[in-house]
């Protein structure tokens, strides 16, 4: 097996020195926030470093924007989740009894699941949550979503496969 790391690292070092200022400008324009842009530049390079294969980018800026788009999408996803979470907490009296630590832990757990489910189509996601969080029977889910039982089964397997392969062994 070939170890790609040294190659990958030197490639990313080049990408960083040559394009880091440009990427930060690009993100700042999107976000309108210098500090946030700097954070996401960091995240973008971290993501590149996590790759196992060399980058081999002929168009380094195109690659950087592709990866940064993903980082940006994740940022918006997280923002939406946090907003929904705070809204949910505000409406749940039992949340008053939760310590700040518990709230943070719950948010992290939710973030993990949210990231898993992010790529799934809305009905698949909804079916999965109905089964997992509400313990609904498949027939009830089918009725609630207005689809056939076979479709519900397909949805649940699809979501299950997603979780299965996304969770580390």
């Amino acid at each position, binding site marked *: 097996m070939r170890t790609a790391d040294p190659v990958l690292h030197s490639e990313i070092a080049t990408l960083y020195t040559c394009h880091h200022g440009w990427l930060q400008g690009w993100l700042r324009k999107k976000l309108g926030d210098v500090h946030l842009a700097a954070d996401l530049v960091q995240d973008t390079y971290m993501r590149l470093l996590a790759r196992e294969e060399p980058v081999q980018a002929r168009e380094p800026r195109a690659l950087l924007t592709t990866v940064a788009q993903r980082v940006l999408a994740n940022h918006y996803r997280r923002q939406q989740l946090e907003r929904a979470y705070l809204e949910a907490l505000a409406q749940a009296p039992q949340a008053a009894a939760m310590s700040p630590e518990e709230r943070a832990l719950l948010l992290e757990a939710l973030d993990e699941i949210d990231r898993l489910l992010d790529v799934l189509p809305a009905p698949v996601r909804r079916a999965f949550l109905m089964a997992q969080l509400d313990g609904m029977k498949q027939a009830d889910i089918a009725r609630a979503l207005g689809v056939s039982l076979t479709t519900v089964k397909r949805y*649940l397997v699809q979501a299950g496969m997603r979780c299965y392969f996304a969770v580390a062994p």
Partner: protein
Amino acid sequence: MTALQPPAVPPGVARSAIQWWLRQQEAGGEMPEPQRRAWQAWRTADPLHEQAWQKIAAVNQRLAGLAAPQQAAIARAALAPRGPARRRAAQTLAVLAFGAGVAWQVEQRAPWRSWVADVRTARGERRRLVLEDGTQLVLNGASALDIDYGEPVRRLRLLEGEVLITTAPDRRQPARPFIVQTAAGQAQALGTRFAMRALAGGGTWVGVFQGAVRLTPRDAAAAALVLPAGRRATLQAQGVSAPAAVHEDSTAWTDGMLVARGMPLADMLAALQPYSAARLVCAPEVAQVRVSGTYPLDDVPRVLAALGALPGLRVRTLARWWGGQEVVAEAASR
């Protein structure tokens, strides 16, 4: 490097594991016997199958935390698909989270959530619940319960720990029977207040304080028995033990107290276990030592110190290699 990793599970095997997972969920954790056997056979047929199943169990465990009733409503609202649905889900929270108690967490189960749900308490936690028909539950520490209010029965499944139940008459017509199922069999409430505790050996302790309860062993329906108020018995899969007297004291845990009147030390440690992070171990030579007194459940170290001060008894705390602690009660002379 690669050689040390376990062989990758092919997607087909993962899919089969997921299908078994779904079947199990659909059956509410209790697959019919032939299906359960088929599942076991599948797991043992190939190490890869078992490996896939173990991963499913890990995935399931992560999700189970979010499905706890305390968090399910928040999780549902936060995770609902983007758009208007998410807002709607947040609004339904108001229905679920109805009247939170001060010392106790009271949860009202709204009719729209009348399907299966797991209720769990952590170690050292007690919880009161009011079900949709007005039936009241008090869960002891480290307990788990499935609630399945459907047609034609109102059914609870005691999976772990202890619960005190005060049933209410069903508002539906015709009234649905109220049944608590355990690994050992089932108990049908006949207008009652009663407690059930899952025992380590698979049996279920049942004590009746009002009304009566019909106990039906899982594998011996003919041995069914009606337990009247003031009696207790142990339900086993093959039969029911001879009933004995039960005192109201045995529900003192609902007030955070343990009332012992000549209670065997082993039983007392078992009653404290749901409140202790350390494993409580009773040496056989002192298991039958009788203990009396009223003890606070929420201060186990104090109770253990009090026990250690009894003549002839010694209580030691040992650190175990796996990182846990063990408290051993044994004869002082050793």
